[in-house]
């Protein structure tokens, strides 16, 4: 077995749904030991969001949960009970990094602030990832991914080139919002870990999902603040800003530079309409979409997307088909790079999973284990690590502590 990138780090996770669990998944997939704490009986809400294997709702066969929790160990614990809190503190003693996403007021009420936890582990790194951070008037506000996405400001800009000004702004697709928050949080966790590696000293990190989302539109913010440009999602006459329709689907192409534009015109057979001096200079060309796009669309409409994609790229024009999940599973590029890997799970069976966008030469992404069953590692952690007896476990289970 190859060496793990983060094999020296121990992480304790008390998170729910997407953003927090994704941050620690990134660490677990690179070899950190991540112990995930879930509520007894119900577990992470992601277990109930689907998609479910064969469409049969089952908290152990939920695609979202399985995906977000690969390579983690799982225990159940009710931290609101006296015993539960004591056990949490024992786990805190043995960890390097504690990641949590609970309402700040709840953590204060339970006596689980950084100040409290540092008393049991003076060199602890603690990261709180909450919708609006640990300060400010919205600190205690609630938010799902939809809300932080729109509060962050990108939603207001989308769909770009909206066909209808009267319609609502929309969120980014998939898990774009919360996974970005998790990814950004993983960076700062590892920054704190690096610092601790140099000095031995831990620290507290406060991350707001709204702040992360806002940084994703930092250039639009800079345009407003420094150039006075107010951006919205309404239509503008830009050069090929949206995918175009091929015979069998959509294709995105960009001809930003003079060289790319020249290549595209040549590729289309030097049509007469393209001979226009406004199109020779990038800025005026870029603002002449209304005069260019319909012609290009007419040309593109004769082709199949895959064929045109390769032919355009062969002519050094940036292009890409609009892929669905099915297309990605069938992508020869992703297959070559091993983007999907199979993982065996005791309930869900053997399934493919997406891995990561990066390949490390010495410490590759590895699937050591599938996502944990609810409470799967209670005995390993509570008995072997913390020294509780199996009888203790039984009574804690009966009391609803684990």
């Amino acid at each position, binding site marked *: 077995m190859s060496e793990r990138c983060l094999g020296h780090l121990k992480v304790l996770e008390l998170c729910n749904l997407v953003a927090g669990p994704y941050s620690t998944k990134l660490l677990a997939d690179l070899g950190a030991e991540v112990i995930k704490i879930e509520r007894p009986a119900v577990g992470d809400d992601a277990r109930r969001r689907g*998609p479910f294997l064969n469409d049969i709702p089952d908290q152990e066969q939920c695609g979202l949960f399985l995906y977000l929790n690969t390579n983690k160990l799982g225990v159940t614990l009710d931290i609101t009970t006296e015993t539960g809190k004591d056990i949490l503190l024992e786990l805190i003693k043995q960890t390097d990094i504690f990641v949590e996403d609970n309402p700040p007021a709840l953590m204060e009420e339970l006596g689980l602030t950084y100040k409290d936890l540092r008393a049991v582990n003076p060199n602890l790194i603690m990261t709180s990832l909450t919708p609006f951070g640990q300060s400010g008037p919205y600190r205690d506000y609630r938010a799902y991914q939809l809300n932080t996405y729109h509060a962050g400001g990108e939603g207001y800009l989308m769909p770009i080139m909206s066909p209808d000004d009267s319609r609502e702004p929309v969120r980014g697709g998939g*898990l774009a919002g919360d996974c970005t928050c998790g990814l950004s949080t993983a960076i700062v966790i590892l920054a704190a870990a690096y610092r601790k590696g140099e000095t031995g000293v831990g620290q507290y990190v406060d991350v707001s999902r709204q702040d992360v989302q806002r940084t994703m539109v930092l250039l*639009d913010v*800079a345009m407003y603040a420094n150039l006075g440009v107010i951006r919205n999602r309404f239509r503008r006459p830009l050069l090929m800003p*949206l995918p175009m329709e091929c015979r069998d689907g959509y294709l*995105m192409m960009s001809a930003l530079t003079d060289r790319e534009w020249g290549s595209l015109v040549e590729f289309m057979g030097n049509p007469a309409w393209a001979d226009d001096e406004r199109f020779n200079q990038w800025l005026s060309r870029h603002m002449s979409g209304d005069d260019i796009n319909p012609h290009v669309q007419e040309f593109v409409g004769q082709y199949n997307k895959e064929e045109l994609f390769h032919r355009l790229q062969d002519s050094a024009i940036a292009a890409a088909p609009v892929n669905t999940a099915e297309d*990605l*599973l069938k992508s020869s590029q992703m297959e070559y*790079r091993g983007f999907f890997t199979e993982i065996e799970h005791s309930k869900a069976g053997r399934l493919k999973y997406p891995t990561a966008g990066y390949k490390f030469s*010495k410490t590759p992404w590895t699937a050591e284990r599938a996502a944990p069953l609810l409470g799967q590692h209670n005995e390993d952690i509570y008995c072997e690590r913390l020294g509780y007896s199996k009888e203790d476990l039984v009574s804690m289970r009966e009391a609803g502590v684990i």
Partner: protein
Amino acid sequence: MTALEGVRIADFCWLWAGAYATDLLAFLGAEVIKIESMARPDPSRNMTLTIGQAFEGVDHSPIFNAINLNKLSVRINLKQPQGVELAKRIIGISDVVSQNMRPGAMDNIGLGYDVLKELKPDIIMLSSSAFGSEGPLRRYGGYAPSFACYSGLAHLTGYSDGLPNPLTGSIDLMSATTSAFAIIAALNHRQHTGQGQYIDLSSVESLAIFAGDALMEYIMNGRVQSRNGNHDRIMAPHNCYRCKGEDKWVSIAVATDEEWRALCGAAGHPEWVNDERFADAYSRWENEKELDETISGWTINYTHYEVTEMLQNAGVAAMPSFSNEEIFSDPHFKERGLAVDVEHPAIGKQTVLGPPWRLSETPARVTKSAPLIGEHNDYVFKELLGMSGEEIERLTAEEIIY
């Protein structure tokens, strides 16, 4: 004191997907030396296509400034063999090399990983490209919209009756954030083991990861998810609702019956609770169109702030869909201190966004504006490399320092 104090990065990155990766690490205290030249300036120094604006020379772009904060810049002409040798001297005293040229380009100029690891055995090198540096599509190029399309995110973004939507410049920043994560993971590994390594990052795959639930849905059930505005697979209401004012919207997301009852009460419409179309989560989801019309009929009478406050006071997740203009007057945004002013030597006071994290011991922050091109020639060539004034003059005359 900073988290990445003592880490030096020789940065060959450009454009947004490259620049923001090392910007994040510079916020954390890494010394980032941007290696560029008048023979190959970062195009974002000259112009922005997003708003179709050109800037005077290479030192007057607020956009370049916003995404290259804290960095240093040296002018080295990599088209000259002596320039490559000079770049190697910087790499020899660096911990990380980052670059996002087309696959093979760094090898072609003699700066491939094989060469660099001879020069500095524990070097960490990140190569970021559209499709990754191996596989059948490795030579294919791309910009943010094509990353969004190939990755599957565009297919999942937009109205259900509209075109696939390629999101915004955030696509570049998400890829860049993935690069920063990969680098900092490798830094932690090197700190622990003394070993460097090579990281091959694909922007397309870094984004496909964010479609994880759609990928799992296809893998598990063979079903292809498609874009559907703000709607959710199980939650309703889950949308943006028009409020009083011009193009003002509030996002509302409800998961449970308890939250739904709270919404009805806060809206002053307790009778909605008894409406059988909305009686339970599944009914609400199934009758979402009527549900959205009903809620919009209420929200339109209030500002998005008023709706947010009423709902949040009742424990319901709601937030305005903020524009970049109005976020600046938002009290919470002000308190979080994400926007800071920085003095730029050529264009004066600029408002930029800093990092989205608050670290208690080693704050991440904006320390200076983006560099003028070559602004730090003296510091790097004289102080770091110990070059003489004559040597620098000679290399300048020969257009090596260019």
